């Protein structure tokens, strides 16, 4: 019914089965590849597909819809591109009647893609977004999503459907697992160029979600404190030098960047910590004794940690402790003067 010509094949779409026609041969020149309204796939590379078509032929023909004098692609964007690459003049395709509504076309596009392979997150996002433009009723949309093999949890859908609106590099970051979906959504709160710059940074440093969040928080707050932008910060000489230093491995760069950002966000705290460490060093405590300040120097309690193996070491510690107590260095540390 929906396809032109015979009706001896059926696929299930929306409310029921729609008949599928036998194949028609369509000139590639009549297919509009620019119209990507119904595009689900994120993949653009075609060489593998070209090789497969060359060896086995076009096993699964694309679905097209007649639109005035040309054809709009419902599914099979890459297959058509591969056939063009191979220099084909015509291509076998299933043709939907021009009377078929766009929402049914979208369901064909999603169904055709999901039947062939599992969709990635961006593709699921596109599918859900495309569905949302036609189903104003949430329950109908959920039902349709469920039938098409898409997530049918409303709060999850609301999150996922935002992904396809993110800048392409952020979508790619999600697909490459450089960032999680949660991080992708967090980045959507920033200007697109900032989100893209951050994904690039995370890709370069290969860091986990918690540290990504820490870096974003530090950069954001430094930018707000210093009345600048995250973008400008990332382009500053100090940060660029760390990132571009070929002698540092990723883990080292990551650590240096985090320390740098902490120091810049909390300059007085860092200065005080450095001074404390310098004074502790002057006490010459050795490896088995550790003097720790109150957390962030707020409370009154210092901690002295002693490692020993036997009584002789403990006695030795007592002598050392007497020396430390008498030293002006400890006095300086405790009185902060």
């Amino acid at each position, binding site marked *: 019914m929906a396809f032109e010509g015979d009706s001896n094949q059926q696929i299930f779409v929306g409310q029921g089965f729609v008949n599928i026609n036998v194949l028609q041969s369509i000139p590639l020149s009549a297919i509009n590849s620019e119209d990507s309204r119904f595009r689900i796939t994120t993949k653009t590379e075609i060489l593998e597909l070209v090789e497969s078509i060359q060896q086995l032929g076009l096993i699964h023909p694309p679905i097209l819809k007649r639109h005035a004098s040309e054809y709009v692609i419902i599914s099979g964007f890459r297959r058509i591109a591969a056939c063009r690459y191979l220099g084909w003049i015509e291509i076998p395709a299933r043709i939907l009647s021009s009377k078929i509504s766009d929402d049914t076309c979208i369901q064909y596009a999603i169904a055709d893609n999901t039947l062939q392979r599992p969709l990635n997150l961006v593709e699921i996002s596109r599918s859900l977004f495309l569905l949302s433009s036609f189903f104003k009723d949430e329950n109908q949309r959920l039902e349709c999503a469920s039938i098409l093999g898409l997530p049918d949890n409303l709060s999850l859908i609301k999150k996922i459907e935002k992904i396809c609106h993110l800048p392409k590099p952020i979508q790619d970051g999600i697909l490459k697992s450089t960032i999680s979906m949660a991080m992708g959504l967090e980045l959507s709160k920033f200007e697109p160029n900032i989100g893209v710059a951050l994904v690039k940074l995370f890709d370069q440093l290969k860091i986990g979600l918690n540290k990504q969040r820490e870096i974003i928080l530090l950069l954001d707050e430094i930018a707000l404190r210093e009345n600048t932008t995250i973008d400008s910060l990332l382009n500053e000489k100090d940060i660029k030098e760390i990132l571009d230093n070929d002698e540092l491995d990723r883990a080292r760069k990551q650590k240096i960047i985090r320390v740098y950002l902490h120091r810049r966000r909390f300059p007085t705290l860092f200065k005080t910590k450095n001074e404390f460490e310098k004074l502790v060093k002057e006490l010459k405590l050795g490896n088995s004794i550790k003097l720790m300040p109150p957390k*962030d120097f*707020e409370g009154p309690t210092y901690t002295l940690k002693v490692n020993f193996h036997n009584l002789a070491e403990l006695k030795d510690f007592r002598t050392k402790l007497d020396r430390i107590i008498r030293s002006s260095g400890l006095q300086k540390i405790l009185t902060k003067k």
Partner: protein
Amino acid sequence: MTITKLFINQHIKNFPETFSIQSRLNVPVEVVNESREVFDYILSAKDPIQEGKQTLYLTRNNGAFFKKCPGTRCYTCCDYKILHIGTFCHMDCTYCILQSYFHPPVLQYFVNHADLLAELRDVFAKKKIYRIGTGEFTDSMIWELWTDLSKLLVTAFSEQEYTVLELKTKTTAIEELYALPHNRKTIVAWSLNTNQMIKKEERHTASLSARLKAAAKCASWGYPLAFHFDPMVIYEGCEKDYKHVVHQLFAQVDPDKIVWISLGTLRFMLSLKGIIQKRFPNSRIIYGEFIAGLDGKMRYFKPLRIDLYRKMVAWIRDLAPDVLIYFCMEDDEIWNESLGFIPSEYGGLPQMLDTRAVKHCGLNPDGLIRK
């Protein structure tokens, strides 16, 4: 900010205070059976905090009117007492803790004044020195627009000699105080900040000069005064600005009229940070060098606090050497480093403030012994 809706709990709809307030407000009125209905109305708004500032709920206080101030053990507390007359505020300070303290925040005014006065009589009967304030869960003076609260309280406190009332405000709503027989048992107090902070972060409050002018008027009517530099905010140029505030204060107000001055730097619960970011995206005050304090609140890194306190103390002492300066919720190290002593050397902070109240407000010193 103006009130746009008045809710009245049906249990108090026939109270004289209710009629009086209703007659002064020309807004839609809705009588409700229970508070939940008001809270649901507030929570259904796009910005419940904003809605809470425009919605007045008249009800009864079913709990205690006389409460302990919620201080923590980790820092030196002044043992202040709260007179719980209502909640929230129609002014809109960025840092206001009340935004995250009440769920939801709503302008709530308790009209069961007979219960309030009965509780106060019990407090007075103890014949102990208490410092009681109405400005912890709300601003003390915003209610002057629609109620006769100051008349009620100032008169009640004037008739006893052991307890002092502190009315803490950022308004200039003092006109009603003029004719009241206060007997020096009411301290009128202002929260002070720099012009920049008032303009940027204390929306709908009175300007610094207006606050000081109002303070001078109250002093001329014989009221003891207090000032609270709290929260002080560290920003570029803040020292010059705070010094200027100190100079403006003493240019307008005789130091002898001041019972105490408190100092406190900005501190906030982490839950407030998100609210500030959402409601005031242009504010920068939460991006200072804050660390988690011993009470869990975010505070400026201690050396920064000490540095500003020391300077403030020096500027105040330079112009008013005899005024009592104290810190709100700080530890001995801060006291020692900034003021040169710790409260325990003088019997503790509550004792220091009580003694000061006895001296300035004419309280009966016997009340000190009973504590």
